[in-house]
């Protein structure tokens, strides 16, 4: 293979040859690959304040294929910037209601039996603009706080068992090593069910923006609770009622009460092709495709409507369909060239049906801000342009 590459490179280009006949020697190899220079899709980033490091960036779902989000395009949400952590110096300390406070090195954690699983992470603020009536112009702006990766790590239950958790332990307070020491209280049942301590993403070490060298991953739960740059687990009998789980990430209802510890991200979906900002070349055959996911388990079915939600047709799910992981759905469409409202809805294995925005408004009002999962509609105009509704 190397010899072949070398022989290609040895071919020289002569200036005066016509283009068609010019030997195409191509570029050389690279130690760490980059995408084609012709590919330009990128995250849309937004700094929340003038203080550097507070903000979010969104995955350009409308430009992606399949289900895995390239690590370079995983959405971000940071509250005090991305810390630089040397893995050899990093420790995970487990203390509180355990027999003895212990610390683990990254090497220790990699010695535990590993698991590799695809899971989505979705910020519970995803779609907040849709609820508020500021619909995103494209799929990135409407649903881009969702990404889906293959994660590798060790089951949190394995490590907690090694640390000998006491019987009266009910919560695990997870803390990151970022500047603001972001912390969330996690119910022990979730910690023992399917939570992971993750050190790899899509086959290589976690990216700094996703928590390098170690993060918590709570499959199907709001992204904020999957603490990045994890350095401390405080096992306790009660929740800490941290800033993030009280002042933020709680859903205010019209009666003035707010729901707290709303962890599961309910079934949702979005059509990514055709979607806002794209343009169909003309009437005729088009494949409609998008992503669906549920924090309660597997996606059972995705339906697509071509009349704004009055009638629904079942789409094909590209397997494998795995719990708490994004699924690609597809359905063929013969477009007659007339203005059309397209929409998708996800039904998960519990029978939960993705609701409309009106149903969510009726259930918890316009100021609940988080955990929005309403049906997303796109408007296809007669000229083929697609806009948000």
């Amino acid at each position, binding site marked *: 293979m190397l010899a072949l590459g070398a022989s290609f490179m040895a071919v020289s280009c002569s200036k005066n040859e016509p283009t068609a006949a010019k030997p195409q020697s191509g570029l050389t190899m690279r130690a760490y690959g980059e995408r084609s220079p012709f590919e330009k899709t990128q995250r849309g980033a937004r700094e929340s304040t003038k203080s550097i490091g507070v903000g979010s960036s969104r995955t350009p779902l409308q430009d992606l294929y399949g289900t895995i989000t390239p690590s370079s395009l995983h959405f971000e949400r940071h509250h*005090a910037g991305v810390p630089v952590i040397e893995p050899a110096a990093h420790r995970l300390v487990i203390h509180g209601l355990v027999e003895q406070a212990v610390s683990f090195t990254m090497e220790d954690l990699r010695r*535990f039996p590993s698991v590799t699983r695809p899971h989505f992470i979705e910020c519970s603020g995803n779609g907040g603009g849709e609820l508020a009536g500021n619909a995103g112009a494209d799929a990135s702006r409407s649903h881009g706080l969702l990404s889906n990766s293959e994660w590798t790590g060790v089951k949190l239950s394995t490590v907690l068992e*090694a640390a000998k958790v006491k019987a009266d332990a009910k919560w695990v307070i997870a803390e990151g090593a970022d500047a603001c020491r972001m912390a969330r209280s996690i119910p022990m049942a979730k910690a023992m069910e399917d939570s992971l301590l993750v050190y790899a993403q899509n086959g290589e070490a976690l990216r700094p923006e996703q928590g390098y060298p170690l993060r918590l991953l709570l499959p199907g739960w709001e992204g904020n609770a999957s603490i990045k740059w994890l350095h*401390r687990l405080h096992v306790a009998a009660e929740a800490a009622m*941290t*800033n993030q789980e009280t002042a933020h990430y709680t859903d205010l209802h*019209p009666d*003035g009460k*707010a729901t707290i510890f709303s962890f599961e991200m309910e079934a949702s979906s979005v059509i990514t092709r055709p979607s806002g900002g794209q343009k169909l070349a003309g009437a005729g055959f088009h494949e409609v495709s998008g992503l669906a996911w549920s924090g309660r388990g597997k996606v059972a079915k995705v339906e697509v409507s071509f009349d704004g939600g009055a009638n629904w047709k079942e789409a094909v799910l590209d397997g494998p369909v795995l719990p708490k992981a994004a699924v690609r759905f597809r359905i063929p469409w013969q477009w007659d060239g007339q203005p059309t409202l397209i929409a998708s809805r996800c039904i998960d294995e519990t029978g939960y049906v993705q609701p409309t925005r009106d149903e969510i408004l009726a259930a918890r009002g316009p100021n609940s801000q988080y955990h929005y999962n309403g049906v997303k509609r796109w408007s296809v105009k007669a000229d083929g342009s697609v806009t948000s509704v």
Partner: protein
Amino acid sequence: MFSAILVVMVLAQTPMGKPVSAEELRALDITVFPDGKGLPAGKGTAAQGATIYKAKCAECHNEKGEGRDQQYPRLVGGVGSLTTAKPMKTVGSYWPYATTVWDTIYRAMPYETPRTLKPDEVYAVTALLLHWNGVIGENDELNEKTLPKVKMPNRDGFVPDARPHQKLKKSK
């Protein structure tokens, strides 16, 4: 049976971690619970907090905790607004626990230099914010005993997750 033996064998070979001393833990463990567990000894009043606030907080949160440039959160006011069309969520109108105020200031503030305030300074700034929100008096002292006893205006404003808003045919 075989798999059970295998699991035991695997666990016997996995690292059990290195013990962490109480002293190491003291430097690392900053968790504060609503009942006050984890709060260090210290004390402060709103009057004392005013000087610290002016020097270390006002640049972003403004002179009286009103926030700034629609970016830096408002800390004061909003009581009674939660049921209106434009709810204003602040320390005074929304936060259920006074311990969370202390914890947030200690753990994450000032933004550029977190965990540089001493416990007395954090008690003092917490007292100032609670005073501005009408929760305590200007000269009321907050310390590790009195802080958890403060009842925030929205203490009873939180209820458990009410979802799903529809009947499921089975629980996952």
